[in-house]
Every structure is written in structure tokens, then in C-alpha cells.
């Protein structure tokens, strides 16, 4: 039992540095004789130390300066000398090589900075994070500070920077709450984070576990049901599953679900997350009223008499059957099916038995770069001679686009690696972003033309060219074997005529969520001159 005669004020005086010799003597005796007292003492000192730490948060400038100082690659001898001036005398080392000594000094300087009061000059509590930009997400004002309140985003995307300089993009629908300037609880939604050295240890807490960053870029997806997932784009993250002691270190290219046991590994979904650089473009596109133009162009298409099908997956539209998640589309609050698990697909049955001498297929997609050989855009069921001309549109293992019609053959001299018409330019970007894919088939002219982001990419000539056949089909998979598209698909158009190059260009320009100029600059660096295969 705690000594009844002990005055609790003594402990506080000890913390304040105002204890007398008698106080200390009494405190020592009390602690020596009593284990409960020691625990109470330990807890109170723990509180005292943490209070001191939270009372002296980093400012953004501090974080930036420290990032520089602590990054060995960026450190010049001048910086090292300047930074260590006061410390060199203490930490000089005689028995090391110059190089070793330099690196050692640099780290010591960095550590000294981590610890010294230089970084902790703020007098009032600072926000833990600040809103940098937003697309939709009207709940947030740019420049607003966030601390421990619970935040919800119904539609859109918001970009935040923490007091330690971590860049975070959160996509709706999401619920989140900062627990400190380096700890964020995400109850629902998805985020991407880019974490500089000063914010190392940045932690995302989810209902099924934690992601602890070790200086990197990564994404966390918390779906409405099922475990959260961590996807590491670059660097290293520790994954901790709730209720277990185990932790796993994930590296660039790794992904896993926060659940115990085998089967937690996932394929990296590079496009599932909106990252910092894409956010800038989405924001610019949003303010230039791209969405209104997109909606106007869709209205025009709906009145095209040759239209076979148009899915934009919005609320006012009947959702086609299938197995998929509904995620946010190209616009704040718009919808797009997302294919995540094996077997996910959208089912459709359009075009009947009709033979289409001309066909245009176009879609906005957001695709992951996967090891899987094929990702289906549109696959009619089966593949055999009873359905000559049946259509399979996909992304291949070469990351090019392919339009295969059953029974068709390539014209002599074609450069295609397989026996089907393929686009020339790879269509999958390294990082997630929306791209517009289109292909125009003309059985009479015996041509297949491919378009990437509105621009003509390549024409392939066919020797035998059957009219196109549709019927029962899947978007995002094939009924015969798994060719799952991994990612989202938005605004899928099937038209029973050949669109002109100009029309495709307009379709792209009107529908792009990014401002036109920026998007063009982001095309893959390739020579895009049309290639004629038959010459």
C-alpha cells in the first residue's frame, strides 16, 4: 500500500524542479518501499516528458531544414561544417578515414539538430496539418489548419501537408482524424502519403492495423468492409495488424492487407491512389470547368443514332449487373466501377446478333500496372468460329492496347508481336492517372485505328476483316478465363460507326479531368508519328 503519509505535492515539486532535500529523501524512501508508487512515478514522468515534446512541435520550415540536413546525399561539406561547428570539438574522431568521419559528423550534426531547441521555437500549438488544395471537398478551406477533430469528405479529394512536411492526399468518401502531427487515423477512404525524412515514423492507423512509414511514398485503402490495405510505391513501411504482435516490413512494389495469416499479400494497385502530382492537375482541371464540357459532350453522344451503349455509371443511370466496387470517378462525387478481386466484372448484352461493319470503342480508365498478361476492356463471351468477328478489346502484357476480332488476320508485313492488331505506344502510366483509350474498327476499309488520350497512335491493316459482333460480354473480364482489369473504368462508349480522328480528339478534350495543356505534356516520351503497317 502507498504510504499514507506521503504528500503527493512532493512528486509535483520534483517535476517542477522545486523539491527540497527533504522532499527528495522522502520521495526516495517512498519509491523504494512501494511498487505501486514507482509505477505512479514512472507514469507521471512519462507524462512530463511527453508534455514537453508536444509543447514544442516542428514548424514546416524546421522540417524542411532538417530534411535537408539529415539527407546524406544532399549534404555538402559546407553544410556539415556549419551545422557541426559547435559539436565538432566533442565528437571529433581520430582513428577514422576522412570519408567515414565526414559521414559520421553529418549524422551527429543531424542528431544534434533533432534534439536541440533550435527546432522547437514555437510558442503556441500549431495545426497538425494544413489544407493545401482540394477538388470538390467543399468542407475544407485551403489554408485551414487541422488538429484532433474528426473530418469527413463526402465527395472529391483533399490534399494536406502535416506540420512535419508529410504530403497527404485523401479521396472521398473518407473519415479521418489526426491524433498528432505525425499520426493519422483513417476510418474509411483512401489516402496516399509522401513522407520526407523529417516526418519519418508518420503513422496511419486503420481499424485493422497500422502503417508506419520509414520515409517513402505509400497508399492506404480502408474499404467499407474487409481489411485495410497498404500499398508501397517507394521506400519502406512497417505493416502492423491489429491484435497481433507481428509486424512486416514492406518495400517499394509491395502491398498487403492488414489481416493475419497467409493470403494477406496483394498485388500493388498503383492507380488506386491519387498522389500529390496528379492532385495539382485535377485541381487545375476542376477550376477550368472541365466537368461541364464533359457532361455536354455526353448529352450529344446519347442522341447519336448509331450509339450502341454508353455507361457513365452515374446515380441517375441504372447500374449494370456484375461484381465490382463503386469508387469515385473522374469528377468529385461521380461514380466508376472499380475492379479489385479476381472475377470482378461488369456484365452487358448489347448489339444483339447484328453485324457492325464499323465500330468505335472508347473509355476513360485508370489502370494498375500488373504482372497479369491481359486486362480486359471489353470481352464478348467465348471465342470461337461460330461467332466470326466477335470482339475482344484489352490491354496486353506489352502494356499496349489490342483489338482482336475472331477470324480476322493481319495484313502481310505487320509489326505486331502476336497475331492481333496492337497499339504502338504503351498505354499504362507508371503512376495512377486517368487515361482515355479508343479504337476505331472499319471492316470495309480493313483497318484498326488506336488512340491514346485523344491522339492518333497507330493504324493496323487487316487482311481478312469480318464485321464486328457483340452480344453477351463483360467489361473488365472475360467469361472463359481471368483477364481482370485492375482499376477503374468510367464513361464506356460503344458506337456503331467509325468516329473520325477529330471526334476522338474532341471526346478526349471534353472528358479529361486534367487541363488540356498539362495532359499533353505528360504523354509518354515517344515518337508519335503514325505508322503504316502495310508499307
Amino acid at each position, binding site marked *: 500500500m502507498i504510504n499514507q503519509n506521503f504528500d503527493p505535492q512532493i512528486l509535483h515539486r520534483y517535476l517542477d524542479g522545486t523539491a527540497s532535500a527533504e522532499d527528495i529523501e522522502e520521495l526516495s524512501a517512498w519509491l523504494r518501499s512501494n511498487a505501486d508508487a514507482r509505477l505512479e512515478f514512472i507514469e507521471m514522468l512519462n507524462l512530463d516528458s511527453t508534455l514537453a515534446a*508536444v509543447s514544442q512541435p516542428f514548424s514546416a520550415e524546421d522540417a524542411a531544414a532538417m530534411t535537408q540536413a539529415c539527407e546524406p546525399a544532399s549534404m555538402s561539406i559546407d553544410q556539415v561544417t556549419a551545422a557541426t561547428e559547435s559539436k565538432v570539438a566533442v565528437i571529433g574522431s581520430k582513428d577514422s578515414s576522412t570519408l567515414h568521419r565526414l559521414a559520421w559528423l553529418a549524422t551527429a550534426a543531424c542528431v544534434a539538430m533533432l534534439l536541440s531547441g533550435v527546432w522547437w521555437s514555437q510558442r503556441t500549438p500549431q495545426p497538425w496539418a494544413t489544407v493545401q488544395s482540394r477538388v470538390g471537398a467543399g468542407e475544407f478551406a485551403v489554408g485551414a489548419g487541422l488538429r*484532433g477533430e474528426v473530418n469527413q469528405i463526402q465527395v472529391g479529394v483533399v490534399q494536406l501537408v502535416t506540420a512535419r512536411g508529410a504530403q497527404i492526399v485523401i479521396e472521398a468518401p473518407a473519415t479521418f482524424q489526426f491524433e498528432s502531427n505525425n499520426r493519422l487515423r483513417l476510418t474509411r477512404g483512401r489516402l496516399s502519403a509522401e513522407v520526407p525524412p523529417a516526418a519519418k515514423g508518420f503513422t496511419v492507423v486503420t481499424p485493422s492495423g497500422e502503417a508506419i512509414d520509414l520515409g517513402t511514398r505509400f497508399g492506404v485503402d480502408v474499404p467499407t468492409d474487409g481489411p485495410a490495405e497498404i500499398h508501397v510505391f517507394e521506400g519502406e513501411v512497417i505493416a502492423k495488424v491489429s491484435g497481433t504482435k507481428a509486424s512486416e516490413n514492406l518495400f517499394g512494389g509491395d502491398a498487403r492487407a492488414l489481416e493475419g495469416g497467409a493470403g494477406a499479400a496483394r498485388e500493388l494497385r498503383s492507380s488506386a491512389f491519387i498522389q500529390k502530382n496528379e492532385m495539382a492537375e485535377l485541381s487545375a482541371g476542376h477550376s477550368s470547368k472541365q466537368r461541364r464540357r464533359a457532361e455536354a459532350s455526353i448529352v450529344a453522344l446519347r442522341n447519336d443514332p448509331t450509339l450502341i451503349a454508353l455507361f457513365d455509371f452515374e446515380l441517375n443511370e441504372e447500374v449494370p449487373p456484375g461484381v465490382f466496387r463503386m469508387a469515385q470517378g473522374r469528377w468529385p462525387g461521380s461514380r466508376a466501377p472499380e475492379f479489385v478481386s479476381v472475377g470482378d466484372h461488369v456484365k452487358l448484352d448489347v448489339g444483339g446478333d447484328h453485324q457492325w461493319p464499323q465500330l468505335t470503342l472508347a473509355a476513360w480508365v485508370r489502370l494498375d500496372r500488373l504482372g497479369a498478361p491481359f486486362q480486359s476492356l471489353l470481352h464478348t463471351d467465348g471465342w470461337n468460329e461460330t461467332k466470326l468477328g466477335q470482339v475482344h478489346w484489352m490491354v496486353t502484357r506489352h502494356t499496349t492496347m489490342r483489338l482482336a476480332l475472331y477470324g480476322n488476320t493481319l495484313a502481310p508485313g505487320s509489326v505486331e508481336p502476336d497475331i492481333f492488331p496492337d497499339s504502338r505506344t504503351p498505354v499504362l502510366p507508371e503512376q495512377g492517372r486517368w487515361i482515355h483509350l479508343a479504337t476505331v474498327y472499319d471492316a470495309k476499309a480493313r483497318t484498326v485505328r488506336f488512340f491514346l488520350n485523344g491522339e492518333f497512335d497507330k493504324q493496323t491493316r487487316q487482311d481478312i476483316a469480318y464485321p464486328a459482333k457483340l452480344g453477351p460480354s463483360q467489361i473488365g473480364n472475360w467469361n472463359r478465363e481471368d483477364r481482370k482489369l485492375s482499376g477503374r473504368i468510367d464513361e464506356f462508349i460503344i458506337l456503331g460507326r467509325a468516329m473520325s480522328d477529330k471526334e476522338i480528339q474532341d471526346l478526349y478534350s471534353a472528358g479529361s479531368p486534367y487541363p488540356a495543356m498539362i495532359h499533353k505534356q505528360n504523354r509518354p516520351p515517344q515518337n508519335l508519328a503514325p505508322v503504316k503497317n502495310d508499307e
Partner: protein
Amino acid sequence: MPDTDNNDHHRQFLRHFTTHEPAVRAFVRRLVPSRADADDILQEVSIVLWKKFGEFRSDGDFKAWAFGIARFKVLSWLRDRGRDRLVLDSDVVALIAEESQNVEPHLERQRIALETCFEKMRTEERDLLVRAYERNARIHEVALTSGRSVGGFYQWLHRMRKLLMDCITRALAEQPS
């Protein structure tokens, strides 16, 4: 040592150090009389950690290793400078060191819970607490500007610590552990 190895070594160290620094800081704080002493010792500890990092096994427990080194530093500090300070008896410090290491996971949860509790405080009180806990804070001046006597301010400070401790206890009781 080639440059890239050096950088790697450096990165690894920083990674461990930044992750465990709050725990090591709090550990040192428990063993010495003031926050300023703890800061001084922590600087020395960090330099020793870096010097000896080559001996640290990459699959080892950095926190436990750092606690060991910190404990050694604290004991030698108490020997050297403890004489002219009011410090707890060294046998008590040894007990505290050992026992606080045993309950470290619990203490870490408390440290995390504190940040939330701190956030829930009324703004004026939180600001005042920050000023009292700031590095090199002058309690007399803080008391004066808060309109309290020095004695009254210390009483207020004691009450705040107690309220925060109660809040932490409540928060952890609600959490499944």
C-alpha cells in the same frame, strides 16, 4: 567504407533513432531530476548510439539496446554530477529504470493517448501549459502573464497534470488492448 555503405548505415541509424527517440527521451527523463538534464544526457546518448551502431545487430531490438546505453549514461551522470544536485538514491533509480523498461508498451500507449487528451484541453489552458513546458521556460514570467501568483500557478500546473493523467487512464480503459 564505400560511400554508399556509409549512407545506408546512416539511413538505418536515422530510421531507428527517429522511431524510438520519444521512448528513449522519456526513459532518460524518468531517471533524472529535470527535463534540461534529460536533454543533455540524451544528446550524449545519441552520439554514443551512433558511435556504437556498428555493433548493433540489424535484427536486434533498437529500443532495448538504446535503453541499455541510456541507463549506463544516466548512472555515470548521476555519479559525476549527482553529488551537487538533488537526485534520487541510485538504488531507486536502478529500480525505476528496470521497472519502466518492463512497462514500456503501456507507457507508449500513454504517450499516444496524451496527445489526444492534450488536444481536448481548452485552448487557453493548453497554450498556458505549452508555455510552461517550453524549453527554457521561466515559470515566474509565465505565472505573471497568466495573472496568477507563482504558488498559484504551480498549483494549477499540478491540477492540469492530474487531469491529463485521468484522461489518459480513461482513454486507455476504453481501448481494447
